[in-house]
């Protein structure tokens, strides 16, 4: 299928046999219909054969948005998708002892099944007195069964991203932390872990607000 559906004069050419009405006029009408700059809504193509991928501007009646662009699929028109709807609400996730949620900043997750993203917010502390984390000890932070669903395993089974940590008071000291998301077995789950990677004495909490991955 082509964009312009034209009539061709049968070979061998013989101008005595050209029927201007059926063979030429129909072609010029086809050009006229499909080349008009403002004839670009899906309805305007209703009576014309067009190939997949043909685009048309399509008003969105719900949001009064005249700039939505539709693509012809061969049978119907695919509209541009809503960007906001696919995110779930924030869901609290359980924190695995000995770690605790940082007071005022519970750990929550949300999922976008369309773009296949998970995002976290909130933070954890080591214990009820917010002692400093030890360097390079990895803590699995959640036993939550919702986000542990293997559906949400990161691509490749492993993901690491910087997490923020409380400042260290020692001059010249260094504070930093990472979050690790990985697929584990026994039981099979998606494990979210944190690891403090700064100097001793820092890291009274680890925040996960910027952490997100693709499943």
């Amino acid at each position, binding site marked *: 299928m082509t*964009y312009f559906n034209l009539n061709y004069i049968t070979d061998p050419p013989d101008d005595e046999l050209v029927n201007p009405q059926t063979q030429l006029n129909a072609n010029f009408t086809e050009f006229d219909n499909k080349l008009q700059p403002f004839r670009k809504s899906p309805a305007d193509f209703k009576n014309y054969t067009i190939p997949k*991928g043909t685009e048309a501007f399509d008003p969105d009646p719900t949001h009064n948005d005249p700039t939505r662009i539709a693509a012809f699929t061969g049978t119907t028109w695919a509209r541009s998708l809503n960007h906001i709807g696919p995110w779930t609400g924030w869901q609290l996730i359980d924190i695995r002892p000995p770690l605790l949620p940082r007071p005022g900043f519970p750990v929550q997750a949300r999922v976008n099944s369309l773009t296949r993203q998970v995002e976290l917010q909130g933070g954890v502390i080591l214990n009820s007195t917010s002692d400093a984390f030890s360097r390079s000890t990895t803590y699995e932070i959640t036993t939550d069964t919702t986000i542990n669903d293997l559906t949400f395993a990161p691509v490749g089974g492993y993901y690491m991203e910087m997490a923020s940590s409380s400042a260290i008071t020692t001059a010249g000291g260094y504070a930093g932390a990472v979050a690790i998301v990985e697929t584990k077995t026994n039981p099979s789950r998606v494990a979210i872990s944190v690891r403090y990677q700064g100097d001793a004495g820092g890291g009274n909490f680890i925040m996960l607000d910027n952490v997100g991955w693709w499943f």
Partner: protein
Amino acid sequence: MGTNYYNLTLSTGPGNMGDVKNNITDNFKKLASRNDITVIPAGGALPQSGSYEVGDRVYRDDPMDTTNRTWPSNYLLIAKDSKWGYHWRPIQHVISPWVDVPATVISDSNYEIHPTYKFQVALDSKGYCFWRGAVRAKTAGALPVATSVNVLYALPPGIRPATTIMFPVAVGPVTDSSTGKAGNISGRIVVGRDGFISFRWFGTNNGVSRDVWLGSVRYPIGAGWFTSA
């Protein structure tokens, strides 16, 4: 001899219709598919080669199925670069397929794309660019701290950020402190509005860090112009 753009044959004979096949039928045949878009099969890879120019579109024939997260969509070529490959922005779908960035993007012979966690890029229909995966030093051992390295060639126009941005990048693994080899290390990447890329690692360099995770890099595209390589 034909017209400039579509190579249409122009009749030179006076009077009658002349050669109908050359002057009419063949011209119509040249025009028939002029507005056709390349159709990529459902789930197929978007082109990484071919005569496409920035601004060209292809259509990927995916099913309309938001449950399985597939959606038919046109994709607009917004970057075409000998180092970074071709990058297509979705129009109807929310997000493009993830594209493996080719190994040609590595500018430093001490580094490579992680063989398991491929460095990939996706674009969304709002104009965001997302990275995931990792690059790593070719040999195990600590990354050099307190010095900046490029690692990657400059981003091409079309997928550069609107303004220079800095992101933290996670570096790992670091061995457990009980082994005596623990290091404290982190990293950052600067992604310049002119495409310039710079990494820097912080901390003590007695760790065994090697992998550099790029999943934190997500920015609105906005260099303001498109061009071909």
